[in-house]
């Protein structure tokens, strides 16, 4: 059975080489039959990677410990869902997932994209070349079907890292990879446009859906990662600016910049070079993330230890960058723009600021991520760049970006005037300033930056609502439709625009949660004996004792805590430590009492005297639920904007 998986991958390499060669010859000779055969090659690669993936799933599900990968990452009594999710717990499996997803995407591009037949050979050559790289790694360096030496079959596996035994870990890697791999498609179309010298906005129109889908998955991947960190790591935070977290956030930022800047190319045929550069940077950053995970050059909690694949990824990344830059520079004359801006103050110019801040933030994160290496190379001293640096450097940049997010939609295309600005901004700005001042005095600590951040978010929130209101009013006046109907029709008939606003709404809700937890969280670490209380804000937590229970083979030690808020009992919380038979360290499972206003978050840190005394970390994280609600709204907005039909058409091009 293992041979079936291995030979599928081996055969996929051969088919990939054939497919690439067939596409190149078909392009040179304009041979339709050969092109169709190469398309068949794409289907074959999908079939073969699917077989390999199904075989690995089978081994994982049946706990066949003669396979080293299964032995390394699972154990017999692991729940079936976690056994299957161990597919991407290790190096080889995650590479197979990448290759499989890329094969699926390539097949969708080949067989489901209409009207792009002449571009497919170019696009697919690039995508299959990418997949060939992963398949070579899988066959020659990180084979997931390697057997235990000596033909042995241990009775038990090493088990899955307890921290990965969380529902978040089922979705986080898959969504993140769907995002990473998804950006390969617009990248391939961009390079194909450069090769064929058809650098108009066709490639942007064709790939918009792909870009938005990849962006959506990357957003979800980051959010699932944040949620996992929040509930699993027990430190009360959700983002630790680890190099690998940074690696998934950077392409998100540049991808977001790309999604906005392409609108200027669609409307005005401008920024062609910039858009090409942005999608190349985004794609290279996805490879950079994978390089970081597998190279071990930076200290990270996410690393696949000693995988030895870093050099290969570095080489591939350099090759992809060199090829991309060659095509970009050699076609630079074709990309020069003809049109002009009508005014300094216009939506176009605000998009440029938006791009500057998004790419600036990505650069700040990149700079901070690689600075330890630079310091070591120049000074011979390795420094650490972690949370305080990234928070301090990125907070002003991202806050400015959120402000621009509020300003941008309210400025007219082409040219805006003072009257236009006053009309659109006066009320939101006034209300935001009043709210900011009120919050400064009302919230604890009288924190200027916290209140400022809230005020900016409130400003953007109000501008979004104002946009919906204005649009609804205009439609009501023009058609006489009732307000609710006018709003629904307005949104449905301009799905791209209003889908974008819904996404902005989701981002603002996430930002409010970030500000709430960042500036106004309260925390206490306290040691208490049975019967003693921990008081934090208006919560009183009474420690009733430490208990234990068996869950299968695992022993769960949990604290029984009753919680009062303002003198009223609101229930019990049971933070846990789980001891696994197959793992040395226990895993912490936090207990959360969540409301829309705040999360009461309790982690069991340690105990002594046979459990009569225990230490707890207690946090109050304001507005935390809004991060997850914002995430769902972001997904809804994206689906709404992408939904096919008349309302999803592009905006008009200005002549």
């Amino acid at each position: 059975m293992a041979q079936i998986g291995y030979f599928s991958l081996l055969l996929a390499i051969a088919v990939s080489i054939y497919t690439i060669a067939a596409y190149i010859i078909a392009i040179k000779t304009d041979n339709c039959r050969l092109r169709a055969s190469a398309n068949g090659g794409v289907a074959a690669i999908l079939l073969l990677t699917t077989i390999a993936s199904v075989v690995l799933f089978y081994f994982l599900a049946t706990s066949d410990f003669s396979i080293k990968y299964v032995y390394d990452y699972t154990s017999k009594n692991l729940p079936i869902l976690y056994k299957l999710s161990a597919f991407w717990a290790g190096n080889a499996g995650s590479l197979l997932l990448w290759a499989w997803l890329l094969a699926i995407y390539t097949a969708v591009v080949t067989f489901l994209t209409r009207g792009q037949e002449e571009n497919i050979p170019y696009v697919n050559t690039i995508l299959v070349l990418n997949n060939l790289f992963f398949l070579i790694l899988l066959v020659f360096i990180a084979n997931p079907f390697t057997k235990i030496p000596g033909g042995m079959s241990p009775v038990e596996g090493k088990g899955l890292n307890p921290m990965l035994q969380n529902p978040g870990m089922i979705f986080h890697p898959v969504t993140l990879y769907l995002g990473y791999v998804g950006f390969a498609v617009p990248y391939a179309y961009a390079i194909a446009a450069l090769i064929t010298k058809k650098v108009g906005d066709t490639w942007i129109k064709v790939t918009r859906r792909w870009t938005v889908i990849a962006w959506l998955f990357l957003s979800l991947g980051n959010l699932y990662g944040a949620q996992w960190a929040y509930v699993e790591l027990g430190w009360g935070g959700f983002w630790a600016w680890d190099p690998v977290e940074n690696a998934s956030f950077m392409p998100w930022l540049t991808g977001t910049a790309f999604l906005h800047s392409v609108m200027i190319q669609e409307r005005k045929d401008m920024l062609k070079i910039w858009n090409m550069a942005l999608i190349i940077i985004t794609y290279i950053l996805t490879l950079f993330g994978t390089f970081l995970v597998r190279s071990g050059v930076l200290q990270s909690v996410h690393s696949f230890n000693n995988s030895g694949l870093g050099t290969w990824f570095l080489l591939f990344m350099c090759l992809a960058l060199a090829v991309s830059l060659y095509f970009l520079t050699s076609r630079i004359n074709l990309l020069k723009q003809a049109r002009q801006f009508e005014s300094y103050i216009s939506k176009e110019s605000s998009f440029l600021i938006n791009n500057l801040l998004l790419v600036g933030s990505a650069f700040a994160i990149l700079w901070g991520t690689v600075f330890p290496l630079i310091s070591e190379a120049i000074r011979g001293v390795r420094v650490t760049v972690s949370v305080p640096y990234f928070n301090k450097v990125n907070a002003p940049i991202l806050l400015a970006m959120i402000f621009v997010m509020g300003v941008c939609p309210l400025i007219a295309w082409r040219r805006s005037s003072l009257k236009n600005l006053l009309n659109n901004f006066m009320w939101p700005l006034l209300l935001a300033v009043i709210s900011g001042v009120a919050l400064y005095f009302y919230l604890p600590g009288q924190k200027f930056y916290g209140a400022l951040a809230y005020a900016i978010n409130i400003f953007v929130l109000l501008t979004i609502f104002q946009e919906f209101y204005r649009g609804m009013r205009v439609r009501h006046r023009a058609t006489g439709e009732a307000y609710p109907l006018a709003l629904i029709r307005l949104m449905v008939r301009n799905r791209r625009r209003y889908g974008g606003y819904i996404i902005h709404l989701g981002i603002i809700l996430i930002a409010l949660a970030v500000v709430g937890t960042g500036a106004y969280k309260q925390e206490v670490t306290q040691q208490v004996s049975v019967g003693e209380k921990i008081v934090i804000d208006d919560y009183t937590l009474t420690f009733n004792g430490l208990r234990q229970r068996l869950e299968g083979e695992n022993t769960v030690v949990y604290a029984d805590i009753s919680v009062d808020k303002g003198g009223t009992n609101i229930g019990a919380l049971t933070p846990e430590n789980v001891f696994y038979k197959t793992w040395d360290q226990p895993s912490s499972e936090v207990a959360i009492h969540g409301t829309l206003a705040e999360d009461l978050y309790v982690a069991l840190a340690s105990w002594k005297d046979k459990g009569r005394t225990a230490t707890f970390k207690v946090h109050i994280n304001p507005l935390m639920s809004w991060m997850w609600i914002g995430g769902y709204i972001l997904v809804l907005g994206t689906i709404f904007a992408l939904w096919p039909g008349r309302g999803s058409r592009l905006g008009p091009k200005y002549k």
Partner: protein
Amino acid sequence: MKRKVMQSVLVLILINLVVVLPVSAAEPVVNEELFKEIEANLMCTDGCGMYLQACDNATAQQMRQEIREKLAEGMTPEQIYAYMINIYGEEVMAAPPPSVPFNISAWVTPFLAILGGGLMIYLALDKWVFNNETSESQIEVDDVDLAEYEDIIDEEIKRYY
């Protein structure tokens, strides 16, 4: 079955007696805000790569104890950072300390890059708008109105022509 029960009992005894993380018997009473501020600027030093605030292993707990002791001894945050750097190296700081001149580049480069980018945008806009100033009429387009009315006009055209 009996063996399994015995195993479980042994595990529980082990957890109660041995595996539990050590907790200091007597933690010095210190200014908690100051303690948190110092903790937030340090990394755990056992190679786990985690921010001290986020880490709960034995080394992290020992470091916290050390911070409390130094605070109780009356040391200032700066003195505690210097003490930590002396023992663990510059790497113990969670951000490059700006007291080292080279580290200033870590802090200012992103902002210089953004300023440079802003300047480039300004120069580009200056060129694009200047070239265009005389060629376009002074019109202002309200986006919402335009989109809505275009939509309605489209429908009217379809209906009547």
